[in-house]
């Protein structure tokens, strides 16, 4: 999955998330067209007992635009990483809007992911003392191997634009 955030000079904005689902989707390449096909129907697994033609599978994708009520601040944000999208975006928004971190700091912060079994997974490098503290409060801590969460965002405040693409995918934003 990938996410792109755009803020144009006229104040319009686009938050778009696109996917072929798993890494290289279905692993089927159309040789005549050069197109790699998705494996999106796998998203029904564990989430549905039956499916119907024309139905869209459930998704964690959430291209989001936040705007202050006075319209002076706008945050265009979204992410990739399957189920990790939810907490990665929530954590970045929380870090930035309420906990006082810069956009870059909010996205770069090590994440905590609560998996489908409700076990808690900390990104490598997360503060160890906090992990121990969570263990004492009764959380089941697991050591997830892959953290594919990526958040890309653009924000405008007081007439200036900050843009940040997640280092985790070696991304970088551009503007003028």
């Amino acid at each position, binding site marked *: 999955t990938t996410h792109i955030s755009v803020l144009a000079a006229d104040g319009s904005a686009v938050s778009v998330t696109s996917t072929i689902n798993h890494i290289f989707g279905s692993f089927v390449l159309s040789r005549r067209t050069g197109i790699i096909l998705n494996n999106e129907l*796998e998203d029904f697994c564990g989430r549905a007992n039956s499916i119907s033609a024309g139905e869209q599978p459930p998704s964690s994708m959430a291209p989001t635009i936040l705007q202050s009520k006075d319209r002076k601040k706008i945050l265009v944000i979204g992410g990739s990483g399957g189920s990790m999208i939810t907490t990665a975006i929530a954590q970045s928004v929380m870090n930035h809007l309420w906990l006082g971190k810069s956009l870059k700091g909010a996205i770069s912060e090590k994440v905590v992911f609560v998996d489908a079994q409700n076990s808690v997974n900390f990104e490598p490098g997360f503060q160890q003392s906090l992990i121990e503290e969570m263990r004492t409060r009764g959380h089941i801590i697991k050591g997830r191997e892959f953290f594919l969460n990526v958040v890309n965002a653009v924000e405008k405040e007081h007439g200036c634009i900050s843009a940040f693409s997640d280092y985790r995918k070696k991304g970088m934003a*551009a503007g003028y």
Partner: protein
Amino acid sequence: MGKERRRLVCVCCGLVVAVVAVLLIIVCVSRSKCPGERFSHAAVAADSLRCSNIGRDILLEGGSAVDAAISALLCTALVNPQSMGLGGGAIFTIMDSSGKVKVISSRETVPKNFRQDLLQHCPKTVKLTTGPQWIGVPGELRGYARAHALYGKLPWARLFEPIIKLARDGFPMPEYLAQFLQHKFIKPMVQNSSLCELFCHKNKTVLGVGDTLRYPKLADTLEIIAKQGAEAFYTGQVAQDLIRDVQEAGGQLSLEDLESFEVRVDEARTVLLGEYKMHIPPLPAGGAMISLILNIMHGFGLSPASLQGNQTALTLHRYIEAAKFANGQRMKIKDPHYSPQNVDNMMDSSFADEVRAMIRDHSTHPASFYNITPSTDRFG
């Protein structure tokens, strides 16, 4: 004559110097207005600098935010082909300059002749699930076309120009893609699939950093779509070629599936979050879960002080608890056109208040408390 020529040269030089000076002043003024790594006018954040730059250049040329997004997406299909491409689907949340927000969803759909026993073949553990039976009807390009029809400024073909050149000329293998290709699980899968035509040397070893990545066949396809429009993918020669390939691989996708694919255009769902309005796409996208977590956390009155001293652990604990309650709602995330159910409460602050009241500051609950239905995690 000589004097006149010298005078002309002097005038021209003066003009060039004046233009350069004006440009320098503009750059300096805009830099000083927004110091540091910030920008004064517009920006694009994509998964690679190459694609962010392509989006930025489209904006500089007078393109709309949607134009820039489409070009950056097409670029990403080449730079991060493991993540997305024309064979997938997308969800756009678009705010116009008046502040009105729409969602354009071209997320893939179930084809007409899907395997009836498909869900019985779901993996029991987290792993890559491959094969043509899992292919959904790709909506990607019809989504771009609809977004461009509603919000585009530059001609459709212009958005494809830099991408076709990139696909044909090639570019250095991106480091992030190379990491995947060299991964111990993914490498043999690529080597034993048709993807090896794109990502392997002739001797079947996968490409690495330092190699050049080219997409000649995709460049041809992009050229057709640039000239003929997205319909070439859904009803034209590209559609026929694509379906032949999928069916030869054993898939059920048909020309009828492509032809009948419908893009959904909706108003965005808007959630009030303190002093912010959060615009998210409707189901089956996952924005409702994010809004629940944020609504719960907002009620705790977060501020920079929430990360001071022992407040840090408390804030983290509350966040984890909020995420557990959100997980408990995950099974409600379904296509509303097929499973009509009211999930408005997930975005309602009173529901968040109820949940918050159930969070204890120094302990957690058993899994059943959170209304969790066991499933596997997704990693797309």
